[in-house]
């Protein structure tokens, strides 16, 4: 969610300052106090505590003990941790690679005003109505090798050992992520595609450009900003994937799908090493923030207005 956000934030901050309207009662800071206090208490303070806890050793019993840099040094020596970073990146990148082309095609297609497209789009939207938990539970059931779809479609799934090997398990995570979130990104692209001025297409048609050419020369370039928005969302979403891993693979087989967000949960709430868990959590915040910032900078995103605005 970070990013719709960043975008909206940029928009919000950039609005020209309002003209002075003298003499009107202006609200004092007291108006903002409840929300601020609430937010500080439940988001900022915990974040500070994460930082503090990452330098302690605590198993949930008694009080945390100061442990210096122990958690951090151990973390960078821990093969599972390093591997989890790699897996997080891998799953995120695969997610972006699968979802982006799919949702652009579907979004542009759905932007057409034909009645059949409207009806199909409404159906495409349905996975978005389910929670990540529900989606994971549904797919776990569907993919059961003996009682799920693989048992009825052996030609496609073979012995159905999808979750029992690394490539299969990663594939499942990427696919389920795409199943759930492609509708969302489709929606973004649909809105953006509708906002492309029709004049451009009309001009192209006069020049005799076909559908394919129009798509590559007009539609795609016009969707550039939207692509960045959508990709930032995918990246942050991918890095914080949790429900799907917990329910579908539990980080397995072995540690083959133990991505960082899940490893944090495992360290903290399964092995009761809250210090190490906090260190991973802090690392996650830093990585997610840095990635968002880098993408924003590299793309020059902070200098433009969002194309999705007003959707």
């Amino acid at each position, binding site marked *: 969610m970070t990013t719709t956000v960043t975008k909206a934030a940029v928009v919000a901050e950039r609005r020209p300052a309002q003209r002075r309207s003298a003499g009107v009662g202006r609200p004092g800071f007291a108006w903002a106090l*409840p929300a601020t*206090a*609430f937010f500080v*208490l439940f988001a900022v*303070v915990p974040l*500070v*505590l994460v930082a*503090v*806890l990452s330098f*302690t050793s605590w*198993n*949930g*019993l*008694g*009080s*945390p*003990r*100061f442990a210096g840099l122990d958690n951090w040094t151990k973390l960078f020596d821990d093969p599972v941790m390093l591997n989890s970073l790699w897996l997080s990146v891998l799953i995120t990148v695969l997610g972006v690679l699968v979802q982006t082309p799919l949702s652009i095609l579907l979004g542009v297609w759905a932007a057409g005003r034909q009645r059949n497209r409207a009806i199909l789009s409404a159906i495409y939207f349905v996975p978005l109505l389910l929670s990540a938990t529900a989606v994971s539970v549904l797919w*776990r059931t569907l*993919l*059961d*090798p*003996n*009682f799920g779809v693989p048992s009825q479609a052996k030609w496609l799934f073979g*012995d*159905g*050992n*999808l*979750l*029992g*090997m690394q490539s299969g398990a990663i594939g499942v995570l990427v696919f389920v992520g795409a199943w759930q979130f492609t509708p969302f990104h489709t929606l973004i692209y649909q809105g953006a595609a509708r906002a492309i001025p029709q004049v451009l297409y009309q001009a192209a048609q006069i020049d005799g450009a076909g559908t394919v050419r129009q798509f590559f020369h007009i539609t795609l370039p016009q969707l550039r900003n939207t692509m960045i928005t959508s990709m930032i969302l995918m990246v942050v979403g991918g890095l914080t994937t949790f429900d799907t891993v917990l329910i579908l693979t*539990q*980080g*397995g*087989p*072995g*540690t*083959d799908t133990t991505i960082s967000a899940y490893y944090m949960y*495992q360290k903290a*709430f*399964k*092995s*009761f*090493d809250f210090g190490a868990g906090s260190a991973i959590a802090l690392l996650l915040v830093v990585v997610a923030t840095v990635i968002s910032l880098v993408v924003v900078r590299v793309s020059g995103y902070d200098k433009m207005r969002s194309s999705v605005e007003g959707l």
Partner: protein
Amino acid sequence: MKTPARISRAVAAGVALALGLTLSACGGGSSDSAGGGGSDKIHVLVYGDAANKVEKQLVATFNKTSKVKAVLDTIPGADYQQKLQTIISTPQAPDIFFNWGGGSIKPFVDADLLLPLDDFIKKDPALKSSFLPSVFDSATVNGKPYGVPMRGTQPVLLFNNKKVLADAGVTPPKTWDDLLGAVKALKAKGVTPIALGGGDQWPTLMWFEYLYDRVAGPDVFQKALGGDKSAWESAGSKKALGMIRKLVDAGAFGTNYDSVKFTDQGSPTLLATGKAGFELMGSWEYSTQQDSHPAFAKKDLGYSSFPTVAGGTGDAGNLVGNTNNFYSVMKKTKHPEAVAAFLKLQYSDEFVKAQLGIGNLPTTTNTEKFLGTSASPAYSKYQFDLVKKAPSFQLSWDQAYPQSASTPMHQAVQQFFNGGLDTDGFIKAMQALPTA
């Protein structure tokens, strides 16, 4: 360190304030459960499942006569141990709680949270003498008793589908070679020889537990658990691993076992529907099958103990599994007398009958009298004799080790099966486990 504690206190105060201010409108959201603050109550926390019926009944019995009332709280599903550890040092901690003995309570003993039961036993020696010693002892930590058995014992047995075995001309294996032969015969019939819920990981662990015992006897694991990590490199350890490797490579578990789970009934259904010949599982397999495949449970569900290994030092009668579940007592309880009175019920006739009625097998000395009243007398008697005669009853490894070891242990076991770790890799992984 003091700092975080102070911060948290300040935060807590702030939270309380914020609560009062912002949430008076949301009063309906509060829950009435859990939390052991009440002055005239003791909270009993148990693993939430079908067996709660008996616990409810005993709490009701207790409350009929006691001035201090017992309240039963449950944590459902597989998260029990996790949730327990998260609340045990908070004000929400119960007075009495369910556990697996051994490593599952060791951290709590180390944190000085539990009440040693010596005094209770001094006042009421039956609190100890009413239970089978091998079982009672597995809740002894640092030489002191910390748990009273509740519910039943759950040894791991080799279950089979009699019809499938008969079709393949196989009998329940007495030796490891018999088992290898059976695997071959079943495979030839196109059946997965052994159902395994590898997705849950702990069912896979059971194979290690039994093979280590049969090959090298119970001491190797005890040594390792005691902190002697060289035990994992011993010849016995390596031999057991080699045998497991061979079994897996022979296709005994098929190819997709890691996508199958016991907890969603995958593996038991394979056994019940004749798609697999065997399943190594805790004694609860029986009630699971009765519940979901009653016809199969009645007619074709067979069971035997784990085969012996030629040249191995472990006794054929040794068992592994959950020796029993236990009630342990928190030191901070305000009503030790009431707690003691409650624990007394755990060897009463009423308790034994009720447990047998739901298919559990209590380990009290008076259990034998009532075996005939059990839901399935033959099965109960079979198990009771096994447990009573067992020279060693090894608590499941993941329960014997501290909780923090269980995830890496499960992962190593799974990786050894699927080839992700070789023998040396597995040994190293086991040596890296914290032994507390």
